[in-house]
C-alpha cells in the first residue's frame, strides 16, 4: 500500500550519492520540498560535479514541490543524466509538469557586439528625434494658441480657473511663509556689513530692489515648478497612460487646445500674483527686522518710496509671467511625452521640475542681459 510518509518513516537523509557500475547515482527519497532543496542544494551539486555520467534516482520521492523539482532538474542539467522517475503518481506528475514547462534548451544570453560608431550614431539620432519632437510640440502649442486667440470663448475657462486655484490660491500660504523668511534673512544678512559703515538705513533699498527685480520672481517660479510643473506632468502622463489623450483625439478634440492651453494660461497668469505675494511678504519680513534694529516702518516706507520704481516692479512681474509660461509648457510637454508605466510618470514629473528650473534660470540670464542693455 502506498501511503503518505509521516515524518517518522522518512529516511534521515533525503539524498545519497553512490556509484553503480561507473555511473554516479544520486538517490532521493521522502519529501523533497523547498526547504529541503534549499538546505541540500550545495551538497547535491558538489556530489554531482565529481562524476561523469549521472543517474537521478527519484524512485523513493514521496512528495515534490517546485523547489524540489528545480533541484532535480538542475542536477540533471549538469551532465548526461538518466532519470528514474518517482514511483508515486503525485511527485511523478509534479516532476513531469515542471520539466515540460521549461523551455527545450536554456537560451544562452546573446553577447552584445561592441559597435562604438553605431552606438554613437544611434544615440545622436535619438537626441535629434527627441529635439524634433520638442519642436513639433512647441509648434502645435503655438498653433493651437493662435487658433484660440480670435475665439477666446472656446478656451475652457472653467478649467483655467481650476488650475488658477490649484497653482495660485493653494500656493499662497507657502509663498507667504517663504517670502517673509527671505525678507528676514536678507535684512539680517545685509545688516552685518551695512552696520560697519553706519548704512543700515539703506537695507530697505537693497532688500526691496533685489526682491522685486530678482528674488521674488525667481522664488515664486521655483515654487511653481515644484508644485505645479510636476503636477501637470504627472496628471497628463497618467492621462496618456490611460489612453485618455488618444480618446480626446478620436473625439476630434485637440489635446493641446483641450489640456495644454488652459494649463499654460493658468501658470502664466498666476505667476505675477505669486510674485506679488513674495514681494509684499518679503518687505514685511524686512520691516520686522528693521524695527528690531530701531527703524520705524515709516522710515522704511519712505526709503522704499524714494528708491523703488514702478519699473522695477513691472519688470519683475513681467519676467515672472514669462517664467510661468515656460514652466507650464515644460510641465505639459513632459507629461504628454511620457512613456508607459508608473516609472514613466515619475520620470515625467522629475523632467518637469528639472526642465522648469533650468528654463527659468536660462531665461533669467537672458532677461539680465536684456535689462542691462536697455538700461532698465
Amino acid at each position: 500500500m502506498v501511503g503518505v510518509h509521516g515524518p517518522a518513516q522518512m529516511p534521515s537523509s533525503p539524498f545519497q550519492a553512490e556509484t553503480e557500475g561507473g555511473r554516479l547515482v544520486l538517490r532521493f527519497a521522502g519529501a523533497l520540498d523547498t526547504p529541503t532543496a534549499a538546505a541540500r542544494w550545495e551538497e547535491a551539486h558538489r556530489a554531482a560535479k565529481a562524476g561523469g555520467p549521472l543517474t537521478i534516482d527519484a524512485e523513493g520521492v514521496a512528495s515534490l514541490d517546485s523547489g524540489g523539482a528545480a533541484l532535480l532538474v538542475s542536477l540533471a542539467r549538469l551532465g548526461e543524466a538518466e532519470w528514474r522517475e518517482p514511483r508515486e503518481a503525485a511527485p511523478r506528475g509534479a516532476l513531469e509538469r515542471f520539466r515540460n514547462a521549461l523551455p527545450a534548451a536554456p537560451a544562452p544570453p546573446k553577447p552584445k557586439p561592441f559597435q562604438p560608431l553605431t552606438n554613437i550614431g544611434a544615440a545622436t539620432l535619438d537626441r535629434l528625434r527627441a529635439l524634433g519632437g520638442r519642436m513639433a510640440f512647441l509648434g502645435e502649442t503655438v498653433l493651437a494658441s493662435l487658433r484660440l486667440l480670435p475665439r477666446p470663448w472656446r478656451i475652457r475657462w472653467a478649467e483655467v480657473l481650476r488650475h488658477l486655484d490649484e497653482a495660485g490660491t493653494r500656493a499662497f500660504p507657502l509663498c507667504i511663509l517663504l517670502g517673509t523668511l527671505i525678507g528676514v534673512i536678507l535684512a539680517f544678512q545685509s545688516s552685518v556689513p551695512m552696520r560697519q559703515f553706519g548704512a543700515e538705513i539703506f537695507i530697505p533699498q537693497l532688500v526691496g530692489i533685489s526682491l522685486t527685480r530678482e528674488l521674488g520672481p525667481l522664488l515664486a517660479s521655483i515654487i511653481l515648478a515644484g508644485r505645479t510643473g510636476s503636477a501637470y506632468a504627472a496628471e497628463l502622463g497618467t492621462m496618456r497612460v490611460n489612453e485618455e489623450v488618444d480618446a480626446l483625439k478620436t473625439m476630434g478634440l485637440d489635446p493641446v487646445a483641450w489640456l495644454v492651453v488652459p494649463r499654460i494660461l493658468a501658470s502664466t497668469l498666476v505667476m505675477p500674483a505669486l510674485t506679488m505675494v513674495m514681494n509684499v511678504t518679503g518687505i514685511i519680513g524686512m520691516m520686522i527686522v528693521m524695527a528690531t534694529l530701531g527703524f520705524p516702518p515709516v522710515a522704511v516706507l519712505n526709503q522704499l518710496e524714494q528708491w523703488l520704481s514702478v519699473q522695477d516692479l513691472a519688470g519683475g512681474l513681467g519676467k515672472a509671467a514669462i517664467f510661468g509660461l515656460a514652466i507650464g509648457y515644460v510641465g505639459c510637454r513632459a507629461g504628454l511625452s511620457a512613456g508607459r508605466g508608473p516609472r514613466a510618470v515619475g520620470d515625467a514629473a522629475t523632467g518637469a521640475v528639472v526642465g522648469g528650473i533650468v528654463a527659468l534660470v536660462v531665461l533669467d540670464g537672458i532677461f539680465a542681459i536684456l535689462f542691462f542693455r536697455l538700461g532698465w
Partner: protein
Amino acid sequence: MIENPPIPSPGAEAVVTAQGVAMRFGPRTIFKDVTFEVRRGEVFVILGGSGCGKSTLLKLLIGLMPPSKGEIRVLGGDWNALEGEARRALLRRIGVMWQSGALLGSLTLAENIKLPIEAHTRLPEAARALMASAKLGLVGLGDAAERLPAEISGGMLKRAGIARALALDPEILFLDEPGAGLDPITSAGLDALILSLARETGTTFIVVTHELASILAIGDRCIMLDKDAQGMIAEGNPRKLRDESEHPTVRAFFRREAM
C-alpha cells in the same frame, strides 16, 4: 473542449470558511451575512453583477482588510489574529492573481516571479531562475521571461500574474477576474490551466468572475452575490443553478433573461 470536472468528495476538509461575514463602508452596506465554506481541491467561484462586492469579498478573504462583522478562516488561520511570522507563513501558502496582473513595472517577468521565491525561501539563484522559467512555461510565456510588463499584452500580463501567484506552489489560489478582457481562446486556455492544476496538484481555486462560459466550465461550486439583496442569493453547483434555480436574478444571470 473542457469536460465537466468531477466534484471533489463532499467530505474533503474545508480550507476557507466564512461565517456571517458583513462589510460596510461608512453607512453603505456592501453585503451582510455571507456564510460559505470552500473545500480542498475544488474550484470555487464567487459570482455576481457589477458592484455586488465580489472584489471586496476577495480582499477580505486574502486578509487585506478586516470584515465589519463575522469571521473568516483561511487554512485554519484568522487574519485578524495573525501577526508577524505566523502571518507570513500563511501568506506563503496562498497565491493571488490580481485583475490587471499587478506585476512590478521595473522588473522583467522572470524577476517578478522570482520575487516571492526570494522572499520566502532560501533557494539559490539558479533554483529561482529554474522555477521562474518553469512557472512561465506553465502559463505559456516561456519565451517572454526577459520582457518588461509594459512590453506585453493584457492577456499575457494576466498569465504572468498567475505564474507569479503559482511561484511557491500555493495551497489556495485566489484569482480576480481571470478571464475579463481576454479573447475566448485565451480565456478557455486559462480555464483549462486552472482545471488541470486543480485536478492534478489538488490546488484549491477561489475565482471571482462574471464570465458565464468560465463559470460553467470550471466551477465546482459557486456563490452568487447580489447588490439589491446585499448578500448571497444562491449557492451550489453552477450548472445545477443554471438548470434548476427559480431565483429571478440567478435565472437572469445564467440564462441571460431580462428581469
